[in-house]
């Protein structure tokens, strides 16, 4: 009996409209989901029974006949009679009327109250937002049934009125969902662009805001419909429903009075409630899938990330030279797709010598990051990887168990990520994120690890190591966070450093300092470095050797000097020529005479 009011779900739902849906048609998508079909069929049956009740039985649902009490199933009574001789079948179908009408009242009231209020509050913000949000939180802090009991204390038994009030009670859920969706979509640049295009507010809301709100609201309405049926049944069970009206909750109450004599009377109303509400829930889930693509598949892939990379096929090949730190032979990475597996890396081979900095360059989608994560064994769970060999200082990484790989990661292979702020755990202090791996790998005491962490922070150019050690990630700048991540990557003295676009998220002045730092650390510790980047300036600054990737293949490997002075591959040449760096400046605008 709770509502999906969490603002984060609301926000994601807001984004979840799949444009393809518009084209395919919602109904078509929906009938492809079996549970949706079952749910829809059941709801149609219930609605039909409610509407056609007088045609389906000649009995009155409220006429009691003590002489015919607790009659078994028979010709006059298809489901028998209850403790005071009322026909169960008639009660059941007339009860469906009561339930559906009540639920409809709730849906309409909550929509009429919650939707406009949420739209206005989310779009215009300001005072209305403040006040309405406050009222919503006030209402949400009250147990619904208690509010209804307060109202019924005053007016006596009245199901329709109780449901009308319940519409208001549950409206804050609609309000919050709509408001959160609106706020999320308002942040989108296309809304700014529409405003600059000169759209009026009503038009902007209709064209760009409302379509985003519709999907989550429709999903929520199917849930509210179910909740309303449950709450109404609860009130009727308490004996507070309208008198002289058949209802499922009322039937349960009557059956409860006779629980020792005829517990079977519980079955029919209970089934009716459970099946109808289940249908609402299933319909809601199906709508979510139909409107929002298939989040289930996406989730499943992510989840498997924690188990180490799935299928690995291995074969042997000749030995590698002594001074090679890392040798990759014929690496293939693929992802399952709708139309069979999709290969993103097609047989990449690479070698990095000790103390060498290899730049892996390419445009987005070239497979450069996939190659780097393959070495770390940190590809997303859905990926499957195979290689003839990934030889790291005499060990073939493709043959290692998950535990053995975990002993290498962080200890002998370090990793520097791209985005500094999202790569530190926001809930833990910077210090503990540095100390934990050192204690784990090097067996240092808490005190020694702390001293070492402080020394590292100082080494990466942080002026006040004590303060940063005790800080939470949100308290330090992006540049500083990247220094902390570099400190973490080298904390256990790795022989190989894998840096995935380590300066892309940084300002150029900070980028220069971070590249200096990586270069110094590399020289000082004689590490081999695999640096993934799309920036030829970064390559020129730090790399000894360059491998250029395109569409999952390496098109050219050369020393940095050769690559820039004499690129062999046409693609490399095209990339280098595309660079606007060093191109002539645009000519100044000629001063226009008095032509205008």
């Amino acid at each position, binding site marked *: 009996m709770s509502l999906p009011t969490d603002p984060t779900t609301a926000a994601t739902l807001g984004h979840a409209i799949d*444009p393809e849906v518009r084209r395919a048609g919602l109904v078509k998508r929906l009938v492809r989901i079996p549970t949706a079909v079952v749910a829809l069929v059941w709801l149609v049956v219930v609605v039909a029974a409610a509407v056609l009740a007088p045609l389906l039985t000649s009995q009155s649902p409220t006429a009691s006949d003590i002489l015919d009490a607790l009659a078994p199933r028979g010709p006059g009574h298809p489901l028998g009679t209850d403790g005071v001789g009322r026909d169960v079948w008639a009660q059941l179908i007339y009860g469906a009327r009561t339930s559906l009408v009540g639920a409809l009242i709730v849906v309409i009231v909550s929509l009429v109250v919650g939707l406009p209020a949420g739209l206005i509050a989310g779009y215009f913000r300001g005072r209305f937002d403040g006040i309405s949000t406050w009222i919503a939180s006030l209402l949400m802090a009250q147990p619904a049934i208690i509010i209804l009991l307060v109202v019924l204390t005053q007016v006596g038994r009245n199901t329709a009125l109780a449901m009308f009030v319940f519409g208001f009670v549950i409206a804050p859920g609609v309000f919050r969902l709509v408001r959160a969706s609106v706020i999320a979509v308002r942040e989108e640049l296309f809304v700014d662009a529409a405003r600059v295009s000169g759209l009026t507010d009503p*038009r902007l809301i209709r064209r760009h805001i409302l379509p985003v709100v519709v999907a989550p609201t429709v999903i929520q309405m199917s849930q509210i419909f179910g909740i309303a049926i449950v709450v109404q049944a609860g009130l009727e069970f308490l004996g507070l429903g309208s008198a002289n009206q058949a209802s499922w909750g009322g039937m349960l109450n009557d059956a409860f009075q006779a629980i020792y004599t005829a517990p079977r009377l519980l079955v029919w109303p209970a089934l009716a409630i459970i099946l109808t509400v289940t249908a609402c829930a299933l319909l809601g889930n199906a709508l979510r899938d139909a409107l929002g693509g298939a989040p289930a598949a996406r989730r499943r892939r992510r989840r498997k990330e924690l188990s180490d990379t799935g299928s690995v096929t291995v074969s042997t090949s000749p030995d590698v030279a002594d001074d090679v730190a890392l040798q990759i032979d014929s690496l293939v990475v693929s992802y399952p797709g709708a139309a069979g597996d999709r290969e993103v890396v097609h047989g990449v081979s690479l070698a990095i010598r000790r103390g060498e900095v290899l730049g892996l360059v390419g445009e987005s989608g070239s497979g450069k990051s996939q190659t780097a994560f393959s070495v770390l064994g940190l590809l997303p769970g859905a990926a499957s990887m195979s290689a003839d060999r990934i030889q790291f200082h005499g060990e073939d990484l493709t043959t290692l168990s998950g535990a053995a790989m975990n002993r290498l990661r962080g200890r002998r292979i370090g990793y520097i990520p791209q985005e500094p702020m999202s790569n530190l755990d926001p809930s833990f202090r910077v210090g503990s994120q540095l100390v934990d791996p050192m204690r784990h790998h090097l067996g240092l005491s808490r005190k020694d690890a702390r001293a070492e962490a402080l020394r590292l922070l100082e080494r990466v150019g942080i002026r006040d190591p004590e303060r940063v050690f005790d800080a939470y990630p949100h308290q330090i700048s992006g540049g500083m966070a990247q220094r902390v991540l570099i400190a973490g990557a080298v904390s256990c003295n790795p022989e190989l450093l894998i840096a995935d676009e380590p300066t892309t998220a940084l300002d150029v*002045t900070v980028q220069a300092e971070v590249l200096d730092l990586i270069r110094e650390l590399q020289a000082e510790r004689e590490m081999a470095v695999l640096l993934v980047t799309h920036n030829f300036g970064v390559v*020129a600054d730090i790399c000894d050797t360059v491998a250029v990737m395109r569409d999952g293949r390496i098109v050219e490997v050369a020393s940095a000097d050769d690559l820039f002075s004499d690129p062999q591959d046409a693609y490399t040449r095209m990339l280098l020529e595309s660079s*606007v760096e060093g191109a002539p*400046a645009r000519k100044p605008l000629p001063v226009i005479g008095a032509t205008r």
Partner: protein
Amino acid sequence: MTETPLLEVDDLVVEYDVRGFRRSPVRVLHGIALDVRRGETLGLVGESGSGKSTLGRAVLGLAPVTEGEIRFEGRAISGLGKRERRALSSDIQVVFQDPYTSLNPAMTVGDILAEPLAVGGVAKGEARQRVKDLLDAVHLPTDAAQRLPREFSGGQRQRVAIARALCREPKLIVCDEPVSALDLSTQARVLDLFVEIQERTGVAYLFVSHDLAVVRHIAHRVAVMYRGEIVELGDGDTVTSTPEHPYTQKLLLASPVPDPDAQATRRARRLEAASSGAGGAR
């Protein structure tokens, strides 16, 4: 000879309120002054937090103007009412950085381009022809109109965004980092498109970027921003190759050149400047 500039910004101050009791507002721009002439590209360079995007948003009416004035064709446009601001939409347009969120994913490219036309009162039949012409102008195939944004690559989406900006034949387009989310090869082609359109239509650009090389490529004049102030403003070639202000020099020396020898020299000069310049701003 003294033509009125298309856009003038005088002593512009932008402040944002900070939530919470008695918090003083944060000042993002501290008295900015610049102008853009007809048909000109003014490059606006700076690092994150320099206020360069805020300046663009203030011109678009998307950021609050606390003090100072913004004039368009000699008329003050800061603090306009909603109706008057909407009327300006035929003169001032925008291309944003992120081609993935600047196009409504639920609308076809044709609808996206027709929307500003409908606002401008263009009839449906005529709008359809105009959409065709616009797609042609940004070198997209005509059948693009029936497709959804997500069926396009980043560079193509940015072309759609440029076409949308061109719909109403504006006099000024604010370009907020329009190529920084694009791949290198795409970047160059989109920049060329910007130049081509400018030469054909005479539109002016206020071109915001963090990349000196990009700005050098497209801007006639360049303004360098640092912590909400303009520290240097001048001819594009001069500012991007022999800057005067220490911050611009630092920015230039920090940008890596795609040539190992030239970059080694630049790095050496930067390290030298840093050690002599007693730290500088970090």
